């Protein structure tokens, strides 16, 4: 099987999800940077490879695929990675898929948009703080973390499972993003705290390496956002 051509940018959480899985599952790939700040995803050159004009994207033996979760599902199956990443048992898989669906309009909505308004809109684009949106997104984040604490992690060490899966990678990447604006998701939620520490330990040095550029970008901003 040939290696994966992986089109990505460090600042995009869905890109980091795919990147983390490629590394942890030791899938051979070549990283192609598509700079979103320079809007390279809209360039004619990139659109020839990917008419969707989005990252992440992979090309594998001529097969183009977008959507980070669809990509990791494909990689897990195509490269026959360890079963726990995306179990073949229908009920175990269903509970991972349940999270991966809920993730889009919940987890991502409580983290990515919040990060954008606090770090990018205010600090990079120098726009006035939109307090209404920030308050609304923090309320969403509260709901999301409460569901994690009381449902997804209630009876299991990982999301709906006793072992780490692609659901945990998708979630941890979103939550790690808001660490860079000073939010500690485990501050008042012991299940969440234990899960976060467990997942990061399991992903090992790969996790830190993949987050280095994001750390460098946000460190000068020195943001400590209030959140319980």
């Amino acid at each position, binding site marked *: 099987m040939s290696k994966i051509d992986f089109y990505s940018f460090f600042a995009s959480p869905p890109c980091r999800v795919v990147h983390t899985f490629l590394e942890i599952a030791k899938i051979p790939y070549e990283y192609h940077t598509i700079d979103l700040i320079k809007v390279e995803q809209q360039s004619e050159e990139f659109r020839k490879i990917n008419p969707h004009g989005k990252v992440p994207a992979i090309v594998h033996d001529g097969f183009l695929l977008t959507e980070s979760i669809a990509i990791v599902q494909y990689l897990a199956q195509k490269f026959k990675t360890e079963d726990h990443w995306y179990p073949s048992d229908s009920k175990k898989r269903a509970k991972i898929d*349940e999270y991966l669906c809920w993730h889009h309009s919940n987890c991502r909505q409580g983290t990515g948009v919040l990060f954008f308004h606090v770090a990018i809109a205010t600090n990079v684009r120098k726009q006035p703080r939109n307090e209404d949106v920030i308050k609304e997104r923090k309320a969403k984040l509260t709901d999301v973390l409460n569901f994690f604490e009381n449902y997804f992690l209630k009876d299991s060490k990982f999301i709906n499972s006793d072992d780490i899966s692609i659901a945990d990678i998708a979630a941890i990447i979103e939550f790690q993003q808001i660490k860079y604006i000073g939010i500690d998701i485990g501050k008042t939620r012991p299940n969440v705290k234990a899960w976060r520490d467990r997942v990061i330990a399991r992903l090992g040095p790969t996790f830190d390496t993949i987050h280095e550029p994001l750390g460098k970008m946000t460190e000068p901003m020195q943001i400590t956002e209030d959140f319980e």
Partner: protein
Amino acid sequence: MAKLQFYFDPLSEPCRSVQLFLEANKIPYEAKLTELLSAETRTEQFKKINPVQTIPAIVHGDFKMFESIAILQYLTAKFSTPDHWYPTDITKRARINEYLHWHHMNARWKGGLLVVMKYIYEPHFYKREVSEEVKKASIVALKSTLDIFEKCFLKDHKFIAGDEISIADLLAIGEFIAPDIIGVYVGKGRPKVEAWHNNIKKALGATYDKAHEALYHHMNDIKNLVPPIDY
């Protein structure tokens, strides 16, 4: 195998998608009507079925789950339905998964439901002020979503995945057909979308009509609330 319990409201787009699948594959189920407009998902009793209090939800023996797309994926595996619904070939499946994940924040949240919410439910059922600007923006969002749907997913195919119907089509049509009841038909000016809709109706036959009965009945309930919409 225990009989499936299906918690749903036929006015809910994701519920209709699962109902279409159950009916098309003749999967026996116990219908548990859970009405959204009567807040039946907010009861303590329903919270025991689904802690996140959304529909659709299923109970299958001692197994419970929610999220329409995940439910459909589970049903294809558990009931060994014909392969075209969700192919086992990894590459064909990936192409459908690509649509399924795009669906959430696009067809679902910037599609037909947004238009119905802004024109009907928010002003008349939830008693919220909705400006003309926001209403018109919902139509713009729907059109933009349809543009991407046609260009990146439907293309020149009969169905999203190619020549045969799959769970992707059931989910997409659920969302895109919703505003038909207020006179916004997504096939207008879009012959490929109209053809795709007709392909789905043909493939599902009477099953399609049965699953949409409640929706079109509801059209009568709200017809006096519908303003003229430029679409």
